[in-house]
């Protein structure tokens, strides 16, 4: 898979989370059945044909003649922190799980500010400090959730640990992209992409916790 393909798959998954998801949630208020059918269809097709959601939205944007009016990667990053659909919220009310919700939302929100702050060095450095803090809080929250998983349920614990390790891996990539950017400020796109990956990984943690604990 080329770098371009993997980015396309990322964009597709982000589009499902931050574009289609919120739209379908609004549709649910009018027609639950239609919304749920569409959601299931998009998820199934995108799993079968990775990148489908990206091609779909690109097609819609072309039809509207605005596909070349903005940068999709940057836009997805901005949306990544502003949209939060029910599908990405953990329903369990215990403080540990609600704290995880809060930490995940906070990190995504800070990451989504990158496009508007990246060109103001002082502000951007403050944002990076906040990101460091938010990453720590998120993973501390994940550790607390893992601690609540019953001892007998080693499978779930392991899945959550693996998800956490993956998140740390993408955090390191993000940090490396920042270093590259500070060496060459033309590398802003790489920062946006790696920030998008981090948002996606955050959503993956939420999905995994929902799957294993709810």
């Amino acid at each position, binding site marked *: 898979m080329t770098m371009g393909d993997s980015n396309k798959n990322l964009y597709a998954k982000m589009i499902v989370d931050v574009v289609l998801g919120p739209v379908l949630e609004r549709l649910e208020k009018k027609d639950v059945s239609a919304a749920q059918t569409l959601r299931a269809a998009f998820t199934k097709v995108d799993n079968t044909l990775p990148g489908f959601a990206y091609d779909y939205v690109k097609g819609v944007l072309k039809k509207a003649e605005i596909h070349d009016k903005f940068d999709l990667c940057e836009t997805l990053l901005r949306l990544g922190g502003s949209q939060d659909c029910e599908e990405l919220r953990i329903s369990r009310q215990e403080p540990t799980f609600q704290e995880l919700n809060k930490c995940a939302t906070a990190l995504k929100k800070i990451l989504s500010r990158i496009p508007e702050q990246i060109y103001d060095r002082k502000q951007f*450095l403050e944002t990076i400090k906040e990101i460091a803090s938010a990453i720590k809080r998120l993973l501390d929250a994940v*550790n607390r959730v893992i601690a609540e998983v019953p001892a007998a349920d080693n499978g779930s614990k392991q899945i959550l640990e693996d998800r*956490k390790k993956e998140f740390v891996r993408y955090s390191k990539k993000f940090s490396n992209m920042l*270093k590259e950017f500070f060496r*060459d400020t033309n590398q802003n796109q790489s920062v946006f992409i790696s920030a998008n990956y981090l948002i996606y990984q955050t959503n993956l943690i939420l999905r995994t916790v929902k799957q294993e604990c709810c």
Partner: protein
Amino acid sequence: MENGEWFNMDPMGGRRGQQSLYNESRNSTGYSLHSEYHKDADHSEYQVQFAGIIKEIQVHVDITNRTEVLRMIDQGKMKKMIPAKIGTDSNSILSLSRYNIKLMQVDHSTENLIIRVPIHEIAAVCYVNDDGIHILAVKYGNPEQCSLLVLYCDSPARAERICSDVAQCFQLVYTDAVVQLLEDTIGRVETSSTGSPTINENSRKISLEGLDNHGFSQSQPNLSDRHNRDKRSRSLATSDASNQSIQAELLRSYLEQLRSKFTVDELAKFSTLLKQINDPSPRSHKDLLAVFQEVFQLYGNERKNLLAGLCPFIYEKHYANFLDFLKKQGIAIDNGTLSSRHSFPRNYTRSVSDMNTDQSDIDSVLEGISTQLAQIDSNIGDVNTYLNYPS
């Protein structure tokens, strides 16, 4: 900064045109362009005149205030720290790099080092035009003592360029520090995910929200409350039993690290010196420094990087002195240079004096290690007997 990465100083490249003229003159008088100080290509040089150094200025003085700067210089002249007039013997080269600023007196075929100031010790640089005299003032030092390096430039353009380049230097240092902070944070959370003691926020309130940095308003990192901020970052922990066991665990972990690198005799000496450092009975600053020096010699050049790990176990009242001592030896503290990183919290937030485990815990751990090593030693027996062991 020793482990930091240097980001491209390309924007400063424009000055090289100005510098090349200077290099030509250096060539014409036979100067070497490759002295031991110029190995690194990422530095810039400027022609200045060295006026003098005014020592023991007030730490809180604001040198972005023109009146303050001129007042200090006038006082410096009265005290003969700054000559009333300067001549060609004051011609100097100011060299700026990621590590330091360096001032060298130019004397025909020789260059003599006047002063070298690490970047992290620079508090501020300012330019004052006093009736056509272009004064560049550099405030540097530590929270206890600051000095003012006074230079003259031949033009406002040069003075302003130097100020701008130093500001850029600060920004690069701070950028590096922030990225390092992110990496360190990720490294710590990664460690906590692999089973090492996880210190959650109930027992150790490390917060990155308390960070504030004044490093880039007018090239002035805030030295004046660095000491207080450092102290503040050290007094956060609570006193519950789980926190004590975590602290003891940290201490053991550090001592285990030493055990892998020190001999039995060295460990015994370490124990004695640490007891001396943590002795709360009053003593002079000179005596304390002597002990620090002994510890430094014990660790030696190859192990001096481990000294920073000793910080959490230093008696609270001696901590600031220890920190200054380390910085003077060029030993990087966790996330720490003075001007750019000093506001970041350290990894650990309590000193031995705060810990209920106290010195007796260090003693028992050290005794245990020494005993084990002595037992190993006696089991091995005379090493020479192994030399004839058949293969």
